[in-house]
């Protein structure tokens, strides 16, 4: 009986001393990977500018910062601007520097950090038909720039039809 007891005690001690564990203490490792999509996306508000009745040789404009671009891009962008020729349900103006039945638009922004517009309210960028002109340079991520428009009205009118042009702003990688 005593011998059996001693054997049991010895076995218990050995089991207690010898480590009982898993073959591999650490079997997995994680690597966290991150990536940012090169993504350019903007929206613009307001989408319209109803000028109303225009006088010859006038330069009606929006208030400064009338338009806001919501920028959800993941990298710095440039904003360019262009427009269509005037259209009308009747006779249409010619798009160009002010003259008889001829008018154009100019734009500006206070949020350009390089080229493009030199400041808010300056209306220093001619809005072209066709290929866009740089309006706002180097817009940083999460910055929502504002801009404004001015109509340079005809020097004289020979018809009274309402005129429309569509202005387009385009974002590209800076």
């Amino acid at each position, binding site marked *: 009986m005593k011998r059996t007891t001693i054997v049991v005690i010895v076995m218990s001690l050995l089991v207690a001393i010898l480590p009982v564990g898993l*073959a591999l*203490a650490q079997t997995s490792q994680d690597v966290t990977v991150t*990536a940012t999509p*090169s*993504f350019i996306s903007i929206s613009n508000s307001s989408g319209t500018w109803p000028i109303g009745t225009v006088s010859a040789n006038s330069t009606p404009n929006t208030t400064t910062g009338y338009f806001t671009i919501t920028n959800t891009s993941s990298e710095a962008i440039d904003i360019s601007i262009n427009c269509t020729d005037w259209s009308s349900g009747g006779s249409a103006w010619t798009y160009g520097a002010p003259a008889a039945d001829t008018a154009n638009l100019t734009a500006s922004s206070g949020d350009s950090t390089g080229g493009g517009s030199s400041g808010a309210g300056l209306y220093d960028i001619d809005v072209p038909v066709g290929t866009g002109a740089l309006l706002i340079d180097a817009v940083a991520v999460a910055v929502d720039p504002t801009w404004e428009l001015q109509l340079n009205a005809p020097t004289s009118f020979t018809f009274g039809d309402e005129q429309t042009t569509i202005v387009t702003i385009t974002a590209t990688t800076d």
Partner: protein
Amino acid sequence: MKFFISLLVAVTLIVAGVPVLKVNAQDISNSPNSYAFGTLDASSSYPTGLNFTVENNSGYDVRITIRGSDMTGGIPWTLSDTPGPDIYGLKAGLDGVSYDITVTTTNTTLIENLTDNSSQQWGLELLSPTSFSDGVQKSGNVTLTATQL
């Protein structure tokens, strides 16, 4: 005498029955544990080169498997064999040139036999989605798992 023989047999049985273990705090290690791919264009591939090293100090030869996860952050990217809109791919390789192991969400063998006290460099290649739905940074995990051979 019988008693000592019994004692010896008991000790022998116990030693034989309990494996001699080498328990390390970190049997399998991998470094570094993160990688930033930076800003990605759509439909492009981005290899890391042999940026990672997995090390085995477990006391055993092991097989290393690899699996990935979907990436979260904004509109998530799904991990798939073939990239698509908001669907990305991952490949792995051991020579820094060819990335011939397709990483999926289930374990795939990366290293057939990583012997004890040895290490192996490895790399990843990210295949970006064909188009993005947002510009929010994505984050996901790549998991290495060791199985004793």
